[in-house]
């Protein structure tokens, strides 16, 4: 799979990009071009898989192999593709509706199986392509076309869903920080197993500014904390604030008292606590790497069984299958 590096231009397809002007998806696409180009993977070995939604147009814009499938089912297609050919670098673009609502079942199963698929979940807390209904990540009280009196649904926290499903790689990145996106995508690519990346993505039409209170340039340093392996958990305009993990809660402390973050812990308990900081307006939202652990990769084990059986018994012959069991002759 290794060859000389691609350029961003090599990965741009000849298709006209049809997202709304100002959509966060453009930034994600650009970050992806840059990150993918640096991976040393031949462009014909990428497969981008998607379901339905604005995010799911992604494959058309990458000049590699791509499969725009049906609503919510992209993880199942990706599982089939990767299991059938583990040489391929399989990427999945999905959204909060596609990945967590209609496709929630497939999402948890691709994560628990640890299929080596890289998942970018564009979370804009709204349904875009169907023109503005609330999504499973919209906050309670959210007024949308289908919730004129405000949503009464309790929302999902995508990171918690992924952690709960046993994901081996969980990260979050904002669409207004290209450098962070690039770094996160490259970390996901390097992970051996299923990588789940939630992207805070702004829908300029139906939910504009949904993340402004968290990630606007003016507030981002106070309202987010970038989790990095082996680094102290510090944040703030002056980088003077920190977080310390207590048994069942997270404490705000001064930077010098902050814990060092370890995303490789066997237990996902601490990652859960950090994932849920966005419930607390006095706490920074976690971005960066929440979890990265090693676990058996589904398709490797599937193929290992095939290889071992073939080695042990030799490649099967059709005649042995058909002419097995008790046969008799009629003359």
């Amino acid at each position: 799979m290794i060859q000389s590096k691609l350029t961003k231009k090599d990965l741009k397809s000849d298709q006209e990009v049809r997202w709304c002007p100002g959509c966060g998806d453009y930034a994600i696409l650009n970050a992806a071009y840059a990150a993918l180009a640096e991976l040393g993977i031949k462009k014909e070995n990428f497969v981008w898989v998607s379901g339905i939604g604005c995010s799911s147009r992604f494959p058309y814009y990458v000049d590699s192999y791509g499969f725009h499938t049906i609503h919510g089912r992209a993880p199942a297609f990706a599982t089939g593709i990767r299991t059938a050919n583990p040489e391929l670098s399989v990427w999945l673009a999905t959204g909060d509706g596609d990945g967590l609502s209609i496709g929630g079942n497939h999402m948890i199963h691709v994560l628990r199986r640890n299929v080596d698929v890289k998942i970018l979940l564009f979370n804009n807390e709204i349904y875009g392509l169907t023109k503005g209904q609330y999504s499973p990540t919209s906050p309670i009280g959210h007024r949308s076309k289908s919730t004129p009196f405000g949503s009464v649904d309790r929302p999902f926290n995508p990171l918690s869903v992924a952690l709960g499903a046993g994901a081996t790689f969980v990260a979050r990145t904002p669409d207004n920080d290209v450098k962070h996106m690039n770094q996160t995508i490259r970390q996901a690519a390097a992970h051996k197993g299923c990588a789940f990346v939630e992207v805070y993505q702004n829908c300029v039409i139906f939910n504009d500014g949904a993340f402004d209170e968290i990630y606007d340039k003016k507030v981002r340093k106070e309202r987010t904390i970038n989790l990095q392996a082996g680094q102290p958990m510090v944040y703030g305009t002056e980088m003077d604030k920190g977080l310390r993990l207590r048994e069942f809660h997270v404490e705000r402390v001064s930077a010098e008292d902050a814990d060092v973050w370890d995303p490789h812990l066997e237990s996902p308990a601490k990652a859960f606590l950090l994932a849920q900081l966005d419930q607390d307006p006095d706490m920074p939202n976690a971005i960066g790497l929440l979890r990265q652990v090693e676990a058996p990769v589904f398709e490797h084990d599937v193929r290992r069984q095939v290889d071992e059986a073939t080695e042990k018994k030799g490649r099967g012959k059709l005649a042995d299958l058909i002419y097995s069991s008790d046969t008799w002759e009629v003359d």
Partner: protein
Amino acid sequence: MTREIGTELPLQQQESVVIRFAGDSGDGMQITGNQFTGTSAGVGNDLATLPDFPAEIRAPAGTRPGVSGFQIHFGSSEVHTPGDAPDVLVAMNPAALAVNLSDLKPGGIVVVNTGNFKETDLKKAKLERSPLGDGSLEGFRVISIDINERVKKALEDSPLSAKDVQRCKNFWTLGMMYWLYSRPLEPTMNWLATKFAKRPELVEANQKALQSGFNAGDIHEMFQGRYEVPACDVMPPGTYRNIMGNPALGLGLMAGSELAGLDIFLGAYPITPASDILHQLSGYKHYGVVTMQAEDEIAAICAAIGASYTGYLGMTATSGPGLALKTEAMGLAVAVELPLVIIDVQRAGPSTGMPTKVEQADLLQCVFGRNSEAPMPVLAASTPSDCFDIGIEACRIAVQYMTPVVVLTDNYLANGSEPWRLPKLEDLEPFEVEFRTDPEGYQPYSRDEKGARPWVKPGTPGLEHRIGGLEKEHLTGNICYDADNHELMTNLRHNKVMAVRDSIPTPEVFGPESGDLLVVGWGSTLGAITGAVDRLQKKDASVGRMHLRHLWPLPAGLDEIFSRYKAILVPEYNMGQMARILRSEYQSHSFHSYPKVQGKPFTTTELMHKITGILES
């Protein structure tokens, strides 16, 4: 070993016999039936079998829902069905007797295990009085034996516990039936020795029980004579094995993938009665088969389509409710034009319906049941062994036409068995797939002479392209909302599927070339229709028969065939779905629909009555 104890009794020849073994689901009736089947096949009988087991895994012992049955029809002439009504009913407990007695032929033999007719047994079977003494068995020849006691005596030296001794009852009973129908004990003796090789005490006990049951036949007051069903002399020469529909289909898919030069990827979600296909293929890893038990029916087909996209032969196996869930993905497979084999082992519905009973009511769902215009070839197997051939045919059409293909079988074919004349592998015609690797002039939606687009594996340099469910521009495959292009693509997809017709034969008509009535069947009705029409033809009735294996597109030449008969009868296990298709496709003929939706196959007798009725009117 086979001491001919009963040889002094008169030996009566019979052309064919139907036996039903019935007992509690824990009584081993399926093993008993399968052993009787294997032995009968070995002595050269033609045969057909059908198990009848409850959907419940272990319904309470002794109750009616817990009754498990196995019917075998074996003969010295051609056997087409597992038989209408049993000649012999073996009832291991009161519930088995109560559930099955009404099916028995008048004057038939009932073998009853009286050891299980205590007050509590009757209560479990919801019987107020014992049918042994209340006249319910009048008109039958009743053989009452306390099999519990017989087995206990036969195995009094066995180290097995009293409970385990009783578990040998089925082999005692089998031994007795072997005596009655003059079958050898060796095949079952050998099977036991292999099966329980690691438990010699079980081998000994069961073999002893089998022998003891056989010897018991000598007791003259029980039987007035023995029967013999000689070998069938009309079976074509060849090597045979007995096979059920599900495993035959599994082997057909294996053969089909080999002929295509591809490996199989099966995505499946467990569902009765299709799960055995997943079980079977998951054991073929050394053949390169990849199986995946998905999280649901939808994921199963989606993973299979994903695998087809990479160059595997993707497959999924399900039953009606599962097929309903797969519908949207089937439409995608039509749109992206990738090969896929979709197996629907039909069962009675709607909804969960009767999962272990037969029906053919998914036909319209398969032919038409998708959003928009999403045509797809549909095939149906007609006998258990035909499942093998239809499996190959599905693979051929899928790869040659780059299309999903549905294979319809049903519960009756899946679990029924018959002797299968094994094909000579060198006679099977290969249809090897060539993947496109040449970037020169490549267009993802260009088409060959069959209308199929090129199949390109991701990873092939220079051929990078995107596919998906959005309408594509002709040739380039780019997203396209152009009105004329959509109509063109709709027609191209339709024409491609209809062109499959050019590669399939016109079905053979059996019987008079023209006449009063043609019976047209599809799927598992073949045996019953053949039996009925053959018998009426022997009485010089003006009736022919024809069976459809390709249901969509229908083969060429049907219009001409139909025009040679005054009327056409279409028996099927639904409310007339094939009749409806034929009426819309061939409007100038008179079709009589003969629906049956009882979860039970047609009997030869009822079909004969129906045909005679039409001929007389």
